[in-house]
């Protein structure tokens, strides 16, 4: 059996009605009034094709096919909306395919989210049992691993406290700990590592690595975090527009993925219909423009030069006191640094309905290479709109240290000036 594929996917397609995903639910009245408004549109604008959005359908997956062998760790990558999450949902039987066939040999555990079913009113102990049962663990199994889970989560003292009193860090740790102790033969994981503090993320990555390498289980891992994919997966599948763009060794596929990104490279990007927009964001951001120190639009900047990120927005219901968060990511999608105006002291913004927020980097300490930027816009403390990989730009080498030498890329993503001194020590 070991040579046989444990997951076989053939011609898998999933059709969504766009209206289904956007309009979350409807009432009978909506159906009626909607019918009336459509009829009115038809009468008043006879030429217009009716309602593209409501009746439009989208193939979230189209003719997807691949095999996963026993004990393989396969990464699934792709931009937002490429179909990664839909693929996992179909494999986990949460939603059904429209066409095609999947064959799975082995017990499947899927982790599409950590802490699914956690109830704030219940204690840590109660939630471990509840969450374990939801993830498909038997009661005896949970009881056996209970101490291990508590130790992993580092919440021993608070195990009988309702989780609503937990800090968000503790909550996430406990949730992950339960999930990490699942022991299916096939594990499907979606972005769960995008939570928690850096130290805990590292611990989770270690645990995942353990699961895959030492215990020989098969893992399908969906992530935006190319660094994590690179360190965990031997093989990758790249999805684009619901189709398999390519599959093969991780490095090759990631390179291909990166090659797809720079299409967005431009001194400005229209953000209104951006595909990287996080699900459930309200689309406030209209356009992002990158300009250099002199205000000229740029998409390539020399090392050490200044950069302005100008984001225009239109508030929907009421004026915003806009905060803008910028996260700069390197070519494998690992975050280099991020900043938002709420961190800066004494910075009070006026309430604006239509406006542009500009983030000015005095000197960008980036090494040569390709970078992308995630943008977050919100009202004071509430994040409202988020776009991953909103815009890309290149940094080209420059003689930043004034030595006539160009620094080498490959030592990292950031350069920082240093001063040096040498002194001779007395002979011992």
């Amino acid at each position, binding site marked *: 059996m070991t040579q046989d594929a444990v997951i076989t996917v053939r011609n898998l397609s999933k059709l*969504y009605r766009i209206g289904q995903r956007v309009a979350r639910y*409807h009432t009978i009245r909506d159906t009626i009034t909607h019918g009336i408004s459509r009829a009115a549109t038809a009468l008043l604008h006879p030429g217009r094709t009716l309602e593209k959005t409501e009746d439009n359908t989208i193939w979230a997956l189209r003719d997807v096919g691949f095999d996963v062998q026993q004990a393989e760790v396969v990464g699934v990558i792709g931009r937002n909306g490429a179909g990664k999450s839909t693929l996992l949902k179909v494999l986990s039987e*949460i939603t*059904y*395919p429209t066409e*095609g*066939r999947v064959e799975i040999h*082995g017990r499947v555990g899927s982790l599409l989210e950590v802490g699914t079913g956690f109830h704030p009113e219940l204690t840590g102990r*109660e939630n471990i049992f509840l969450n374990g049962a939801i993830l498909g663990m038997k009661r005896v199994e949970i009881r056996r691993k209970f101490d291990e889970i508590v130790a992993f989560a580092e919440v021993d003292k608070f195990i009988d406290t309702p989780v609503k009193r937990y800090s968000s860090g503790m909550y996430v740790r406990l949730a992950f700990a339960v999930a990490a102790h699942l022991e299916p033969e096939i594990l499907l994981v979606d972005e769960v590592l995008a939570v928690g503090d850096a130290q805990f993320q590292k611990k989770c990555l270690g645990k995942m690595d353990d699961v895959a390498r030492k215990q020989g289980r098969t893992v399908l891992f969906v992530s935006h975090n190319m660094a994590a994919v690179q360190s965990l997966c031997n093989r990758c599948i790249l999805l684009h527009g619901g189709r398999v763009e390519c599959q093969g060794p991780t490095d090759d596929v990631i390179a291909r993925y990166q090659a797809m990104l720079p299409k967005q490279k431009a001194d400005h990007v229209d953000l209104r219909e951006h595909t990287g927009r996080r699900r459930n964001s309200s689309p406030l951001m209209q356009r992002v423009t990158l300009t250099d120190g002199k205000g000229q639009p740029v998409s390539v900047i020399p090392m050490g030069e200044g950069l302005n990120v100008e984001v225009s927005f239109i508030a929907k219901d009421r004026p915003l006191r806009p905060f803008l968060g910028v996260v700069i990511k390197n070519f494998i999608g690992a975050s280099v640094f991020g900043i938002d105006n709420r961190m800066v002291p004494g910075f009070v913004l006026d309430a604006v309905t239509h406006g542009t927020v500009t983030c000015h980097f005095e000197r960008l300490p980036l090494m040569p290479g390709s970078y992308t930027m995630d943008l977050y816009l919100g009202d004071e403390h509430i994040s409202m709109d988020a776009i991953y990989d909103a815009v890309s730009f290149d940094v080209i080498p420059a003689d930043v240290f004034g030595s006539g030498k160009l620094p080498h890329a490959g030592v990292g993503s950031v350069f920082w000036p240093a001063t040096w001194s040498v002194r001779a020590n007395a002979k011992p």
Partner: protein
Amino acid sequence: MNESAATVIHTKIITPPKGWLSINWREIWLYRELLYFLTWRDVKVRYKQTILGVLWAFIQPFMKLVVFSVIFGKLARIDSEGYPYPIFVYAGMLPWQFFSEALTRSSTSVVGSSNLITKVYFPRLIIPIAAVGGCLVDFLISFSILFGLMFYYGVAPTAATLIVIPLIFLTIVAALGAGTLLSAMNVSYRDFHYLVPFALQIWMFATPVIYPVRIFPPRWQWLISLNPMAGIVDAYRSAILGKPFAWGHLAISLAVAIAMLFWGLFYFRKTENRFADIV
């Protein structure tokens, strides 16, 4: 799901759902622990951060009993077939209360569990079943008040009282039938969220809870029994108070309750594949 059976290969084939879909009872059985935990969560959460805790399961029906006895028994002097009104009304209120609570909770249960439905796989039918199960616990607790009343009014239990046990199952069937149907409909049409509480109020007055069946002319009583709760509530009274059973009416109610359960299960099964996409 055998723990130690590493040699057993679980093969699963996923294809688009087609045609008639039967209910996979075996799978629901495999997930019985989840059913237990979801039921337990419902009960546990209901009385968290309340001072009186589970005492509320006594207080609520008791207060209702007092109000009903005063208004309908003392002031309106509604016919109670010769039995003391409090025990007469409580014998009817008890199953009705369970039914109405179970229906309210199960009809919103699927929408309320959207976070589970979009993130984990398990037989969806467990959700409305657990909602009904959670109410069953309260129901059994409020039963103890009935024993108190029987003792107080000197109504001795007879062999016929044991018929209460199958009647409880029948009430579950009625609640589950309407509950699964409404829970699935609520996913597509949130109107039911508003409709159900309102409909239940009317339904209660259409059911012989505060009044006896005999206020209707005998030849129309079968028609009343088309309401499954009518026959059930009346049968509870027969079992508890020792009045003769109206078997014919109970049979009609039973048939309607079972038909409703089939309809509910069928509709639920037919629409559940879309739950994750539209909830």
